[in-house]
């Protein structure tokens, strides 16, 4: 079908007013982004209030929370003393997600674990993003020898595989697991190089644009140019790499906890409860073979769900950076009302402006707040 080029090239005049009101949040409002945001908000809330609303302490054990099964060949009728092994209880009203073989409440563990998992993800991503901005933007802006040196450091860190390095570092810093900050720091050390490379490339392309030249000619200092001229233009990329790094950091934290390198909550000094440690306990106790799905499935699903939320939000940012991806993210109804084919012809992928989508999808009146 033919493209309605008038819509594409000239924004609807009534649209821009509505668009202005929501300029602050310039993410495309596709269902993907909304779903991602909802998931993240839910986990963020649980991370904050999880420890309060947990019905029990995650470490609390109670003899009556497991079934005691008589070991065959012991007890009455044999010459051996009666011996029992514990069997976890399936979900019930008292234990929403059942219990573990250690007679602990899984639902409480899941709630409490959210906090450390989310906190490490965010803090590691924050440290790593700060590092990558410092190294990447500086290298890209300064150029020359500084660039060569910083890029080399970045490339070396990029080439060394992250998890093995993380394992060795965590292995030698046994106290790491007791502190959110230490774990985050170690993870950030292995995570910053990729974002740094992306930021450097983008800074290189911005460095000689006119507005930067203008700032330079008008006598602005280097630091000011980097902070106020270049950095604002990097925000979408920084945001994307922040989300990507959060995803990586959660995966890395879960992985080292699964390997037993982030401490155990019951040892001293106590490690932090997190989803990776929960999975470690289920794996060590053969929960899959035992059929105790209520124990091993929830932490894994939470990790996958949180990761999906981050990735969905990242789609939104990708579509913001690269408008061509946006058409693919439109719903059928929105595309039809814009007169755009969702199966674009070659070479003619329409670049959808957000204000168009906004108006057509929500049907907002011009000027409504």
């Amino acid at each position, binding site marked *: 079908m033919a493209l309605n080029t008038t819509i594409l090239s000239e924004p609807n005049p009534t649209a821009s007013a509505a668009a202005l009101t929501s300029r602050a949040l310039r993410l495309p409002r596709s269902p993907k982004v909304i779903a991602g945001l909802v998931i993240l908000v839910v986990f963020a809330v649980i991370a904050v209030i999880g420890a309060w609303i947990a019905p029990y302490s995650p470490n609390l054990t109670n003899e009556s929370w497991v079934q005691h099964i008589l070991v065959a060949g012991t007890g009455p009728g044999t010459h051996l003393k009666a011996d029992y092994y514990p069997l976890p209880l399936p979900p019930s009203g008292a234990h929403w997600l059942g219990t573990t073989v250690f007679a602990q409440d899984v639902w409480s563990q899941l709630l409490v674990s959210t906090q450390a998992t989310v906190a490490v993800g965010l803090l590691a991503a924050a440290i790593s993003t700060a590092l990558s901005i410092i190294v990447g933007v500086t290298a890209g802006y300064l150029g020359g020898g500084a660039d060569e040196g910083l890029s080399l450091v970045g490339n*070396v860190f990029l*080439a060394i595989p992250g*998890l*093995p390095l993380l394992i060795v570092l965590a292995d030698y810093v046994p106290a790491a697991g007791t502190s959110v900050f230490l774990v985050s720091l170690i993870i950030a050390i292995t995570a910053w190089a990729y974002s740094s490379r992306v930021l450097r490339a983008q800074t290189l392309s911005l460095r000689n644009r006119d507005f930067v030249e203008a700032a330079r000619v008008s006598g602005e200092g280097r630091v000011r140019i980097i902070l106020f001229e270049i950095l604002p233009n990097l925000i979408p990329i920084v945001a994307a790499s922040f989300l990507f790094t959060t995803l990586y950091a959660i995966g890395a934290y879960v992985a080292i906890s699964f390997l037993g390198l982030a401490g155990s909550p019951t040892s001293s000094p106590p490690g932090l409860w997190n989803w990776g440690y929960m999975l470690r306990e289920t794996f060590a106790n053969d929960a899959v*073979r035992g059929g105790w799905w209520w124990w091993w499935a929830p932490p894994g699903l939470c990790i996958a769900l949180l990761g999906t939320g981050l990735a969905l939000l990242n789609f939104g940012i990708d579509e913001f950076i690269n408008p061509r*991806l946006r058409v693919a993210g439109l719903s059928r109804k929105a595309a039809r009302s814009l007169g755009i*084919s969702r199966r674009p012809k070659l*070479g*003619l992928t329409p670049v959808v402006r957000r204000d168009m989508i906004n108006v057509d999808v929500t049907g907002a009146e011009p000027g409504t707040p």
Partner: protein
Amino acid sequence: MRALLRRLGVYLLAAWVAVTVSFLLPRVVPGNPVAGAIARAQSSGICNAYCVKAIEEQLGFNVHTSLWLQYVQYLGNLVHGNLGFSWSENAPVTSLIASYLPWTLGLLGVATILSFIGGTVIGVIMAWRRGSFLDWLLPAATFFQAIPYFFLALVLVLIFGETGSMLKWFPSLYGYDIYGVDPGMNLPYIASIIGHAVLPALTVILASMGGFILSMRNQMITTMDEDFVLVARAKGLHTGKVVWYAARNALLPCVSNFSVAISLVVAGQILVEIVFNYPGIGYHLYGALGALDYTLVQGIFVVITLVVLAANLLADTVYVLIDPRARLEA
């Protein structure tokens, strides 16, 4: 060629950094392995000065010489392929790793290649058929990308594994049937290896393919708007040929991002091997961590790093071969 040499330089430097980190860490961080080993020895008897010396020798430490001399000695040993002695396995680390490596490399190589090819093809098709029913693959790929490898492994064991509780189609423990077949060049052994590799490989493929799909799709959508694709179409070329033109060009950034992908896949596979008790490097790393066998942990770290660097160099070579610009640039 110069581009390749430059990359080679970066990788050599990375290898040196990894080796140095693995040398320095145990010596800088308090509570070094020697103290641990002496404590272990003392718990089963008296450890006198000779015993201490023997432990130091065995672990490749000699804490009474200067750090620099130790470093030179460490590098010298490394060049001769001597990574120290593993007390938990009671064998030289080098020969241990040599016995683990084929399993890891085989699984990693096959799974990564299948995943890369599959992911790229699916990504191309998804970009080409945008707006079709194939779009549901996008959230699915995202979900699989977000699942930790080892959790996916647990789910696959549950559904398909012999130790699971549902279909019991494939063996899900060890690298081959350790009770039923004799290792060697015989058919049952090879068949057993392949059967035991199905689930671990499937895990790695499913978990890593999402990333390849997404990056290829996004790259392809951008490339499809280039003028040369329009020209190719305007000339009336076959759809297949036009897609091939676009895909070839969209592939380049994906190949150059391969180095990031490969270290994520390696990280994932370490955990997958643990779940399946697959006798590769990752599984034994788990054992070494549990046994506090620092020598083995470090040896494995150094070797994994070298493997990843070699894979990167391979990807770079391919990149230079398929992209003429990379040859001109340098």
